[in-house]
């Protein structure tokens, strides 16, 4: 049903339609509206057959989900940022035990300095934790990916993280088609666990595994994700056959035909990028973009195929591998192994900094005109950085960096009044 609603609320409704049996909630901005929405669905009786458990930390949230999933219940939780890091140990544990938990990650920066706004640092921090990671481009896709995620997770018995940009998507109110229950039921069968704690058939789960078998267990985890490379497009196609719209898949090209330049990115920023590409195509620039929906498993072959023959690739990413540059860019370079193609890393949108069409277009013009440094920080305020480096070099006790930078910039409201 079409409705004007907030992204988080639509995600909550979508999760509810998937008939979860145990939901564990611990609040963190910007994930809060999702678990609030689900709490209301359960408490009001609209979502039946579901236990909603308010826990004392994210670590407990995922741990409760682990117990519920191992006991045969369909389990769900949601988090963001610091919360994901706080549950990091359990994140690895859930995948290591092969439990098909679905978790929404309302993407948010990681502190210090503490920052509640959007970037992808959280998802990138746990990219190798054995979870499938899907990135939603729009709120419609966020809804649709959750429905696919439960099915994907349960077929593989592997946890799935649906990444939804904090605030940009979670708090945006827009037109969303929330599917009918019958359609979701037709797509998503009841959860049939591959392992379950049951007194009728006792099993031990979570035994110690030494060098004699650890590699094999890890390989099998990798093998699941390699299977997901086939499954994700299949589920996307099946989803379309039932719901009548595209959602998910591994990668999504936009106006890449004959392109000299392709911008690669994940999540909601693809909307801005597409606008820039439309403008530049109109002006005669041969440019397109490639949205990566599945970051784990990373679709190396699809990315390689989509970028075939492209002169330069700009990887726009909302995270920074400190001391290296880009995470996504490293992946793209791996996909392009053996090929002589220019890859630029464009770090943008950290801690919620707006990614402006104007700035992005200016950078694209620059790299199209002449070679540029490997790593570029979009809209970096060079004067502030240089002044702080200089100031810190003047005295040993130069004080806290973030506070000094803020002192220099002044109140963000100052320029607005």
């Amino acid at each position, binding site marked *: 049903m079409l409705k004007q609603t907030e992204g988080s609320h639509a995600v909550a409704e979508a999760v509810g339609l998937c008939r979860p*049996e*145990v939901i*564990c909630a611990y609040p963190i901005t910007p994930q809060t509206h999702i678990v609030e929405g689900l709490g209301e669905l359960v408490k009001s009786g609209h979502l039946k*057959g*579901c*236990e909603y*458990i*308010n*826990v*004392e*930390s994210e*670590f*407990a949230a995922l*741990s*409760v*989900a*682990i*117990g*519920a*999933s*191992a*006991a*045969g*219940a369909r*389990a769900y939780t949601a988090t963001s940022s610091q919360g994901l890091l706080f549950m990091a*140990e*359990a994140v690895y*544990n859930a995948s290591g*035990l092969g439990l098909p938990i679905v978790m929404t990650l309302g993407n948010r920066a990681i502190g210090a300095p503490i920052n509640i706004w959007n970037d992808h640092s959280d998802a990138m921090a746990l990219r190798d934790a054995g979870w499938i990671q899907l990135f939603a481009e729009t709120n419609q896709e966020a809804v649709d990916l959750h429905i696919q995620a439960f099915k994907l997770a349960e077929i593989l018995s592997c946890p799935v993280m649906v990444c939804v940009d904090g605030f940009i998507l979670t708090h945006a109110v827009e037109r969303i088609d929330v599917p009918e229950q019958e359609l979701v039921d037709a797509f998503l069968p009841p959860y049939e666990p591959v392992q379950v*704690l*049951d*007194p009728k*058939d*006792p*099993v*031990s*789960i*979570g*035994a*110690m*595994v030494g060098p004699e*078998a650890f590699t094999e267990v890890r390989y099998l985890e990798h093998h699941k994700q390699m299977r997901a490379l086939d499954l994700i497009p299949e589920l996307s196609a099946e989803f379309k056959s039932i719901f009548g719209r595209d959602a998910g898949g591994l990668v999504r090209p936009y106006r890449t035909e004959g392109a000299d330049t392709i911008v690669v990115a994940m999540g909601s920023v693809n909307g801005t990028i597409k606008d820039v590409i439309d403008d530049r195509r109109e002006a005669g620039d041969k440019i397109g973009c490639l949205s990566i929906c599945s970051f784990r498993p990373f679709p190396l072959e699809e990315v390689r195929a989509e970028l075939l023959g492209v002169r330069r690739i700009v990887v726009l990413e909302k995270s920074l591998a400190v001391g290296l540059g880009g995470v996504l860019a490293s992946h793209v370079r791996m996909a392009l192994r053996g090929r002589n193609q220019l890859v630029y890393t464009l770090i943008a949108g950290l801690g919620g900094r707006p990614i402006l069409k104007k700035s992005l277009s200016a950078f694209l013009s620059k790299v199209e005109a002449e070679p540029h440094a490997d790593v570029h920080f979009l809209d970096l305020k060079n004067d502030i950085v240089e002044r702080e480096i200089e100031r810190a070099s003047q005295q040993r006790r130069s004080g806290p960096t973030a506070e000094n930078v803020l002192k220099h910039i002044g109140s963000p409201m100052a320029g607005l009044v």
Partner: protein
Amino acid sequence: MNIIKFYQKGTYTVGNRLVSEEERTTQSSQERTNSITCGHRACQGCGEALGARYAIDSAMRATNNQLIAVNATGCLEVFTTPYPETSWQIPWIHSLFGNAAAVATGVAAAQRIKGRDNVRVIAQGGDGGTTDIGFGCLSGMFERNDDVLYICYDNQAYMNTGVQRSSATPPAARTATTPPVGPEPGNVFGTGKNVPLIAMAHNIPYVATAAVADLRDLEAKVTKAMGIRGARYIHILVPCPLGWGSAAHDTVRVARLAVESGIFPLFEAEHGVVTNSTAIRRQVPVADYLLAQRRFAHLFKKGKPVDDRAGRLQAMADENIRRYNLLRGEETDR
């Protein structure tokens, strides 16, 4: 089950032959489930293996064998599951060190939602997994009153990693991280962290302490706990010959000295109120308990205290005796 006060002279072992069939222990029954079966890798004289065996078999009997166990990382987890072998004859899951209580909450929630209310859940861990790293999850489980019995097997240090101090390590005790050197050798005299009392502060339906000195009492408390719904906590003192520096054949004796000296009081509490304590039958000085363990050896020279620290430990026992009314002059040694 009635509290049995009949003790065989000399050994203090409860004589099953002398009581009626229904009052006999779970372990004496041919129907016992051997939930942790033989062949596990616990050290000789392991108090935790003994305590867990009695606790789980009793819980099995009390639940008509409808039991799922969640285990924190630690000795019990490691020595029972050297896969592909497992000692567990019941459904069992180990997730992490600090989340056993939360995982158990999830397992219990799944039973409820699946309409399997007869299937009950136990979470268990050592003192490190309970009083330190798992404390947040434990408190959360208590506060929500989730239908889980949490059992802490307290051997008073991180034994699995090689005897490092935990918040359950007693003052002055030698551990690998509180060596008996310097002006204040061994563990510090802190303020203590009494998790049974903290559990009581959550007003949960049932809290009890037990020790492997009195296995009938341990069985009775587990059985009672499984007859109650909601969050329950049993804290069992389980000597560790390796970490305590006690003889493997002395595990039960050392546990008894802890109880009979008052340093480890046995009591039960319901909804935050102490309802019962086990009277000390034949009081012994704390020094007897300390001298049986090398971890306290630095407190004595030729059997005599080197300073006031043994006395301070005696004062702690005296305070327990007062607080739980452990010297009631009851005639129990019939």
